[in-house]
């Protein structure tokens, strides 16, 4: 039985602490580019916490929305890649093969969520920070696009382990770094093909919406919230 990895993000639970962002950076060897480059729009956050303000001072309400790759079924980023660096893998993941990427950056333009990040320069980890690198994740060189993988290295390891032990993967045993780090368990990860998994049940929740659902990309992340989300006035 093939897996179909999905996620549910409970916006009502999110406190905006950004522990997920930090965990993601540590797990996936995401370079930090420094203040100068960050101010020039080169910061890389595979997951980001979007802040939106509602109301006017002093009656202001702050809302948080963690946004990461939505692992779309009809991902707009995939078909535009001329080298198959972006494609759908057998688990329904929106895979990014770094070695195939030549850096046209077309995928990042086509992505309606802006969750793809580009290595504008070769990444650096000044000593002793290089000791924190995760050996399971490759380093990406200059000119390569990267993005959230749902911690594919963890998925591969768990699948291999389960196959070796001749058992099925247990729901909840496998977590990407962001879900693991979330103190309020706002991020739930699992197999959408298993109708009884927590993520599959949450995906059916009446509180559930998809981000930019009307564009038809069929994202695999469900956002849960009691009140409907109003996009702020765009202009």
């Amino acid at each position: 039985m093939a897996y179909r990895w999905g996620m549910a993000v409970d916006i009502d639970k999110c406190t905006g602490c950004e522990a997920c962002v930090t965990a993601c950076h540590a797990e996936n060897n995401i370079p930090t580019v420094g203040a100068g480059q960050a101010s020039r729009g080169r910061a890389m956050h595979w997951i980001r916490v979007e802040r939106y303000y509602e109301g006017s001072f002093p009656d202001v309400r702050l809302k948080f929305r963690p946004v990461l790759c939505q692992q779309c079924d009809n991902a707009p980023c995939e078909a535009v890649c001329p080298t198959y660096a972006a494609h759908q893998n057998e688990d329904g993941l929106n895979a990014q093969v770094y070695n195939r990427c030549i850096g046209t950056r077309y995928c990042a333009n086509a992505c309606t969520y802006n969750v793809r990040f580009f290595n504008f320069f070769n990444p650096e980890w000044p000593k002793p920070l290089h000791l924190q690198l995760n050996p399971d994740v490759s380093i990406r060189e200059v000119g390569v696009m990267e993005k959230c993988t749902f911690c594919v290295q963890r998925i591969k390891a768990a699948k291999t382990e389960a196959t070796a032990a001749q058992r099925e993967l247990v729901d909840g045993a496998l977590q990407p770094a962001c879900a693991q780090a979330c103190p309020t368990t706002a991020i739930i990860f699992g197999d959408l093909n298993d109708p009884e998994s927590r993520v599959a049940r949450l995906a059916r929740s009446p509180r559930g919406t998809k981000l930019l659902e009307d564009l038809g990309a069929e994202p695999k992340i469900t956002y849960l919230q009691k009140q409907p989300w109003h996009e702020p006035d765009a202009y």
Partner: protein
Amino acid sequence: MKAVYGLYDDPHVAQQAVDNLRAAGVADADITVISSEPFDHFEFGHRDAATHMPWIATAAGAVGLVASYYLLAAAQMSWPLVTSGMPIVPLWSNLIIIFEMTMLSVIIATVITLLATAGLPSRGGKMYDPEVSDGYILVGVENPTDFARLEPALAIPGGRVKRVES
């Protein structure tokens, strides 16, 4: 190469020289006319005008169309990767490349046909006179059997006859 030819300033005189050669019994295929511009509206400029070039180009286009369809499909099936939920061999987007390859086949076939039928590139050694580039029209016969019979036909007022005997 042996040759005898006349150089003419006026295309009407050149036409007369061509007619004279015919009257002297030279076959149409043996008469060579060389000029520095096409003379579409003179009879001598029409000789040899018939060509299968458009049909060759069309056939090449058809070959390019069919071949590019199968080449694309073979490449896409050889390592089937799904992107954006599209079919492995998506006709809509393949049509664009099929179109380009069809037109490229037409263009290349046309040029190859041109080079082959016009005898290009050529190493020289054929009847030619650089004065053609000054605007003269050359009418002549390569490797003639009988110089004496042809020279009077070419020697008409407004022309100069030249003989190559080596």
